[in-house]
């Protein structure tokens, strides 16, 4: 619906600008359609490579990260997607993920390395389920079309305003006949020129937010475990760093808005994504895993009409869909031993900064020697072995 509205906006803009500049509405509409068509072609054939190129993503093989590959395959099976999407990892500590590709058979899923480290299996499954849902629901194609529509409207309005400004008032042909009609046409044209880009922008955001809710609902349906996505979203929300290489055009493809900054709550009308807190609340309020359950939770949280298209709900039927229990690997990847390891690494760094020497003893003890230690050897306090002290400065020397 919203997309149709946006298309109508483009045509109306073309229509009135055509009347103003060429004396023919058809000419304006044709120009609008040509701009839209060319941009669509570019987006269609270049879209995913542009997006992946911008983000600095690197494609992985199954053996590079079996766990991630398996999770993507699990979600592919759960969604009934026919072809396995390509998987990309973006080396970025920021937490985010996105899906791209113009058809379900030629799609890619990308995830930042930061997110990969932070999430446990259930959470990762929820996130991947969300991205696979974008692919399955053809959101990528839809958002590309809508953003191209938006781009066309902006371009058309921008050039028309320049043209009008430089051409001056006297040379407009349609006013030749004079009269009120000509003035009205010019007025409507000018108003559209100013308002159409803004309206188109708002529609674009609305479409994007709606598809986010739908993808959340589908992810819950695929995983049968909304809590996974909910807790992943919470982690994403608290990280608060933007993604390098994301830009306005690619924003709706990410799982959460890549531009957010800590402490700044985004205005609800001008955001590509719904507030994370609200998405989490809806997911946690779900009584089952079906789309109907999501719809009910959504209505409870926000009131009014829901987000799931009626056609999808009709297919859903009234089937009971029980939620599943968390997987055995529910604890986060970053568990205790790893944290100790990291703490050791940091303290080792501090010692080295203070010019201490580090000598690993055979018994597993690490000996730290202060910079002005007088003896050439040191006895290990644990096993009693005599270790020779090799100073870093010496060991680095060519003859040492």
């Amino acid at each position: 619906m919203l997309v149709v509205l946006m298309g109508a906006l483009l045509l109306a803009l073309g229509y009135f600008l055509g009347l103003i500049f060429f004396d023919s509405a058809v000419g304006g509409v044709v120009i609008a359609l040509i701009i839209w068509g060319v941009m669509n072609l570019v987006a269609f054939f270049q879209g995913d490579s542009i997006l992946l190129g911008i983000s600095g993503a690197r494609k992985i093989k199954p053996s590079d990260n079996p766990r991630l590959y398996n999770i993507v395959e699990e979600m592919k099976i759960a969604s009934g997607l026919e072809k396995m999407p390509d998987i990309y990892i973006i080396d970025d500590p920021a937490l985010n993920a996105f899906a791209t590709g113009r058809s379900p058979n030629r799609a890619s899923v990308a995830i930042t390395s930061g997110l990969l480290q932070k999430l446990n299996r259930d959470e990762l499954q929820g996130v991947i389920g969300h991205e696979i849902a974008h692919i399955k629901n053809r959101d990528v194609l839809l958002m590309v079309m809508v953003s191209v529509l938006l781009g066309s409207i902006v371009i058309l309005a921008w050039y028309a305003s320049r043209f009008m400004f430089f051409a001056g008032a006297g040379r407009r042909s349609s006013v030749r006949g004079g009269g009120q009609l000509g003035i009205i046409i010019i007025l409507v044209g000018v108003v559209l020129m100013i308002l159409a880009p803004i309206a188109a922008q708002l529609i674009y955001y609305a479409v994007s937010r709606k598809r986010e809710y739908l993808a959340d609902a589908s992810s819950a349906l695929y995983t049968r475990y909304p809590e996974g996505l909910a807790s992943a979203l919470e982690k994403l929300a608290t990280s608060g760093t933007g993604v390098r290489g994301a830009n306005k055009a690619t924003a709706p493809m990410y799982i959460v808005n890549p531009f957010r900054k800590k402490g700044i709550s985004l205005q609800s009308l001008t955001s590509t994504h719904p507030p994370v807190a609200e998405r989490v609340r809806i997911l946690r309020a779900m009584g089952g895993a079906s789309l109907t359950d999501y719809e009910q939770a959504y209505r409870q949280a926000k009131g009014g009409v829901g987000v799931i298209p009626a056609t999808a709900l009709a297919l859903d039927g009234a089937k009971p869909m029980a939620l599943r229990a968390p997987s055995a690997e529910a604890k986060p990847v970053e568990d205790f031993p790893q944290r100790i390891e990291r703490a050791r690494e940091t303290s080792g760094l501090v010692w080295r900064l203070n010019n201490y020497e580090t000598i690993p003893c055979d018994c597993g003890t690490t000996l730290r020697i202060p910079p002005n230690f007088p003896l050439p050897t040191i006895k290990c306090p644990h096993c009693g072995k005599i270790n020779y002290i090799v100073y870093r400065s010496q060991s680095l020397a060519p003859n040492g």
Partner: protein
Amino acid sequence: MLAVWVFVGIVVVLIIIFAAIFNGLVRLRNQVKNAWAQIDVQLKRRHDLIPNLIETVKGYMKHERETLEAVTKARNLAMKAVSAGAGERGKVEGELSSALARLLAVVERYPNLKANENFLALQEELTSTENKISFSRQYYNDSVLNYNNQTQMFPSNIVAAMTGFRGGEFFEIKVAEEREVPKVSFG
């Protein structure tokens, strides 16, 4: 004359509706078939993983011969039932699932085994294969539900009855423990 045209018009509309419903039923039936094939792939994958798992685990688990034998036995039974119907197969595969679950639970007692990289990789594969089996089963059952709904609901049930669409069978893996009442002994 007009009456004839009206009649022809109604017939044409009916044929179009009939064709649309028929095609919808064919699509749903194919979806069920594809979903079944997907389960099959994953079950076979599990059968293939088991000998490797037993081989890796054997050396570490000297005292778990019974558990290992139960897994091998369940696998052999499951492989024999490959061409059986959904109901029978579900039962055998369910037994394999619970035998495997018991084995993986016992692993917790062998820290050395849990440090073995080969085993860790196998464990990831097995865990994921179990997930894939349950996800493909989930998708299969969703597809069967859609298909059955369509064959039973008006008006598509008329088309289904005329052209012989009969709906599909759900696939439930029955895990043995779920049905048994826990035995408590004070001995």
